């Protein structure tokens, strides 16, 4: 519909201009407005002029309406001429070319601003055509047609070869097939970049974090004492094992349900070493159900070593560590059974847990056990916090592992992360100060593309 109106108006305007009626620009504006009006009102089934229309027009509704009728009548009655050569729309404004930045080559960006006759300007343009050639004159081939509707346009031509000169020709086009003055720009050469210029901030962050982590690992390996703050849940371990001894009931330890390749499981097994030493000292029975075969062998090794270290190798039995099943709910049901049968006085959950956390912690609570949990699974932490006596939250679990094993890798990492956290706090404090006073450069600097 809109197209048909445009066509009629296009022809009418052309005819009017040809026979020398009025200022061409004025007529074009009227034509465009009419087109808009018609297409909108026709789609709504109305032909009435709206108040909006009245407000926006420089010329009042009556002359415009008159002109419109006149144009239509003339257009229909004369219906002659080849208008496209005459009502050329304005060309694209400020065209420019550049190699697309930060890419692997093979792409050129063509940008331009809307023609004065663009639909958002005041004209009749409804598309732009992009042509490409390797020579300044001739050999241009159409590579794209872009619809209007913006103030600025960007077209990426990603079918070019690197290190070759290209010229581009831009043309604005009306719905009736009239073209603007072509604009030829160039030459431009596409190339690949060796560094992504928007990513300096990431490189800097990466270097700082890596350097501090590696520095502290190196220091820890050299035997430097690195301080780690005491962690509440860990301090409770001795007390909890003591309680089990007093009550003459076993200690149950669950190192999560993930495999040995998860850091949480590693930390869980490290803490198991500490708990096993205590149970060995007090000669309290220990039970460790696991859901992965690799975890089983690792846990067996750890417990065995603890019992040897304390000088009670006879008290160690490999059956202390039991493999139940890989299946999540199957494992939960199995542990539930163990809890109800053996009624442990103390239960540890240290490692990665999923939905089964809830079931396990509930049963543990119902048998009146003291429960100490630790996990980095944020979705499970709420259940542990409310159902257990102590909970190691997220990174505390890793810190506990590092603290207990004295492993320089873990200690160093933790220290390095602390440096990064310190820097983050500093950045936030400074940044908020700057933002409050209207300086945005730090925020801009942190933006990664």
């Amino acid at each position, binding site marked *: 519909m809109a197209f048909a109106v445009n066509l009629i108006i296009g022809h009418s305007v052309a005819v009017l201009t040809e026979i020398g009626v009025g200022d061409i620009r004025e007529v074009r504006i009227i034509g465009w407005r009419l087109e808009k009006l018609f297409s909108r009102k026709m789609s709504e089934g109305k032909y009435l002029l709206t108040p909006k229309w009245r407000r926006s027009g420089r010329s009042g509704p009556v002359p415009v309406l008159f002109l419109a009728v006149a144009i239509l009548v003339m257009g229909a009655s004369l219906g002659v001429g080849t208008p496209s050569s005459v009502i050329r729309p304005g060309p694209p404004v400020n065209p420019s070319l550049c190699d697309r930045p930060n890419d692997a080559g093979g792409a050129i960006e063509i940008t331009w601003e809307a023609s004065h006759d663009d639909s958002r300007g005041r004209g009749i343009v409804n598309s732009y055509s992009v042509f490409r050639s390797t020579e300044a004159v001739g050999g241009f081939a159409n590579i794209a047609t872009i619809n209007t509707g913006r103030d600025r346009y960007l077209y990426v031509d990603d079918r070019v070869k690197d290190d070759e000169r290209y010229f581009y020709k831009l043309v604005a086009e009306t719905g009736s097939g009239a073209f603007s003055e072509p604009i030829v720009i160039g030459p431009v050469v596409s190339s690949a970049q060796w560094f992504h210029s928007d990513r300096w*901030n*990431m490189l800097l*962050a*990466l270097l700082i*974090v890596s350097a501090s982590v590696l520095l502290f690992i190196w220091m820890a390996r050299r035997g430097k004492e690195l*301080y*780690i*703050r*005491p962690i509440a849940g860990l301090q409770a371990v001795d007390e909890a094992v003591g309680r089990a001894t007093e009550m003459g009931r076993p200690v149950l330890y669950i190192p999560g349900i993930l495999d040995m*390749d998860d850091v949480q499981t590693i930390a869980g097994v490290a803490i198991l070493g500490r708990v096993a030493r205590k149970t060995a000292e007090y000669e309290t029975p220990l039970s460790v159900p696991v859901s992965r075969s690799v975890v089983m062998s690792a846990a067996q090794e750890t417990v065995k070593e603890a019992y040897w270290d304390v000088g009670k190798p006879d008290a160690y039995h490999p059956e202390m560590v039991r493999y139940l099943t890989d*299946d999540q*709910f*199957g494992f939960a*049901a199995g542990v539930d059974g163990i809890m109800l049968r053996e009624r442990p006085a103390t239960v540890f959950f240290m490692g990665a847990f999923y939905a089964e956390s809830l079931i396990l912690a509930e049963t543990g609570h119902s048998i009146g056990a003291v429960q100490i949990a630790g996990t980095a699974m*944020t*979705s499970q*932490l*709420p*259940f542990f*916090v*409310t159902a257990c006596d102590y909970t190691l*939250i*997220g*990174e*505390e679990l890793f*810190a506990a592992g590092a603290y207990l094993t004295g492993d320089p890798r873990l200690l160093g990492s*933790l*220290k390095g992360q*602390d440096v*990064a*956290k*310190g820097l*983050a*706090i500093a*950045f*936030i*404090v400074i*940044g*908020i100060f*700057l*933002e*409050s*006073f*209207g300086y945005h450069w*730090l*925020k801009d600097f*942190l*933006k*990664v593309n």
Partner: protein
Amino acid sequence: MNLELLGTWLAALLTLCIFSFLYKDNPFYKFAEHLFVGVSAGYWLCYNFWNMVKPNLWDNLVSGNWRYLLPLVLGIFMLARLVPKVGWLSRCAIAFMIGSGAGIMIITYLQTNFLEQIKNTLVSLNPAGQPWYGVLNNSLLFAGVVSGLVYFFFSKAHTGVTGGIARVGVVFLMVCFGASFGYTVMARISLLIGRMYFLLHDWIGVV
């Protein structure tokens, strides 16, 4: 019997089998549970075949893209675990996965979890240009992020000022866990409603 009806009945019976666990562990539940493990393993196998192996490996090799021989070889190495003698080869495949995964993670997490989050916390505390509650919320946001970070700071004991700030951090963390507690409960119940709706609407047809 039409296929749709058959499907609904199958789904309804399996749903009831699993719900029967709530009464107690029983053969119906065990049946459904084992069937589920089998079906889901089969599902993921086919899914992986058609969406990973076929388009990424097979199609590439067929069209002569020989660089995809590398993942094929590594994939076969992965299967070497089944033969204890050459089992160590699977370590190469695992090393590839762990290595490239670690590389991607460093970049992604540093960007989205670290730099972007610092950037998002840089809010204005200036009362000019925003209402009083805007300033209050921004201040709380600032206090929460910083004190939370202090809580996860392991180089300093939680005593004195540090201890006080860390304490504030715990308050924020607890509210945050409360929120995720709420949403988890909500999601589980939504799923239950979905199942009940299925039983009442699609199967029995009373709703």
